[in-house]
């Protein structure tokens, strides 16, 4: 597995490879179902290979140039249930998580 193996999804990485969990949530929640499905269709078959590729590095030493690829794989988690279970961009009745404060410790 080599970095160039993921060249075919470079456009997905550029669009969905957002660095924070909050940004990845917002991207999913604010996207249309068609956009989510288009991302999911192409990223789903690649997730196993991305994880295997990145597992060659210790987590804290993944080269910077591969971090967007890692974030894209994590964004795939965000959209998986939307496509497979909810058939919607958010689960029914869901509160808008974007208004919740993301904590940095148990205390704040």
């Amino acid at each position, binding site marked *: 597995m080599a970095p160039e193996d993921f060249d075919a999804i470079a456009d997905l990485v550029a669009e969905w490879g957002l660095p924070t*969990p909050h940004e990845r949530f917002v991207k999913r929640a604010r996207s249309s179902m068609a956009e989510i499905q288009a991302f999911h269709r192409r990223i*789903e*078959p690649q*997730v*196993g290979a991305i*994880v295997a590729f*990145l*597992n060659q*590095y*210790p*987590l804290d030493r*993944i080269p910077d140039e591969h971090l967007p690829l*890692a974030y894209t*794989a*994590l964004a*795939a*988690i*965000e959209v*998986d*249930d939307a496509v*497979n*279970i*909810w058939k*919607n961009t*958010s*689960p*029914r*009745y*869901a*509160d808008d*998580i974007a*208004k*919740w*404060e*993301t*904590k*940095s*410790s*148990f*205390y*704040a």
Partner: protein
Amino acid sequence: MGDDRAFRLGAGLDSVAGGPISVAPFVSDAYFEREKALWRQSWLAVGREADVAKPNSYFTADIDVVHASVIVVRGKDGVVRAFHNVCTHRAGRILCDTAKKGRAAFLTSPFHGWVFDTDGELRNIPKEGIFTQGCDKAALALKPVHVGTWGGFVFINLAETPDHSLEQHMAGLPANLEPYLRERPWTWYAGYRHVFDANWKDLMNIQHEGYHASVLHADTLAVDFAPQDCANTLFPDSPGVSSLLTVSRPVPPPGVTWAPTPIQDVAQRHGRTSNWVDNDTSVASRDYPGAVNHEQSDRWVFDCYTIFPNLLIFVGASVVSVMRVLPVSAHQTIWDWDWYFDHAPETFGEKFNLEHGRIATRNALAQDWGIIDLVHANMRAGVVDTIHIANEMEATVAALYERVVKAVPLQEGR
């Protein structure tokens, strides 16, 4: 409608099981005023002992409903103490860093610079000579707060004299749960905080009953839970342990086989935090017999302990989630949710698994918090004076209610 109407009483304390309960403790402002006593005399979880592992390390906790701010600090002698975060000079708030944790050789008030040691003793008064009347430093130490530890959690109690010890508070729990929660290398991973327009008991109740899980969470948990999949255990003889909710994966209906999606499959291959993975309890079972998964079921997912008044500990095989609530008013509540995993991820695969577990739980939480404000608004509307609690799957709700009205009795329906 106002919130001080006279409420028809639900079943009395002695017969709460199976009967309707009053909505007064949820919506009455008069009840809430009396209920404030709870926060002055209960054991409240405010931190983890690992966060004050080193001498001079501290964290702070605010119990705003009773205007309390508390410092928990390990002294140079290695003893963990708690003090009111109040300078004995003119009541300055000593530690007001928004990070709420850190390390300091001395605790110095930012107001006039009075300096306290981490054992609470007053060490220095700037320009002490201006107190020509003299200052008895020994009498001006920080005001102590009762503190204790259990399962690696630090609890405080604001009472002058707590009516029972923290050890007594936790009576009834499996013996090995305490070392399991204290000794495993639980590592804080992520957390959320939000203020909801609901009573603190509304938030507790939706999280420790399983009846709603098949319905509200039909498209997130996406399975039908039978009563035995959300089993309730009550601890009527324990001063502090209210209930246990044990959640198990339902048995699929005949002819149905649950198959993970390709993305769920990747997550499962790199860890055990996803919801519907067979739970490997080998570490807990080997080193802490009986701490978790008491039935030794391969369908077990987690145990949720309700610790009176405001703490839920969701104990899994490799994940512990902690929910705390603190009231602002009868109609507003600060919610804290924190995830701990049993190790920090070392590979991206492990990270992928942890994120899968966190997101799955978060999506279900989003549904709970999408409706809770509406439930509370409805209870305030005056349409129903009582609510109905099932003996199975919702016994945890009745158990919490019993403890609340025992501590703060209803008065003439208010």
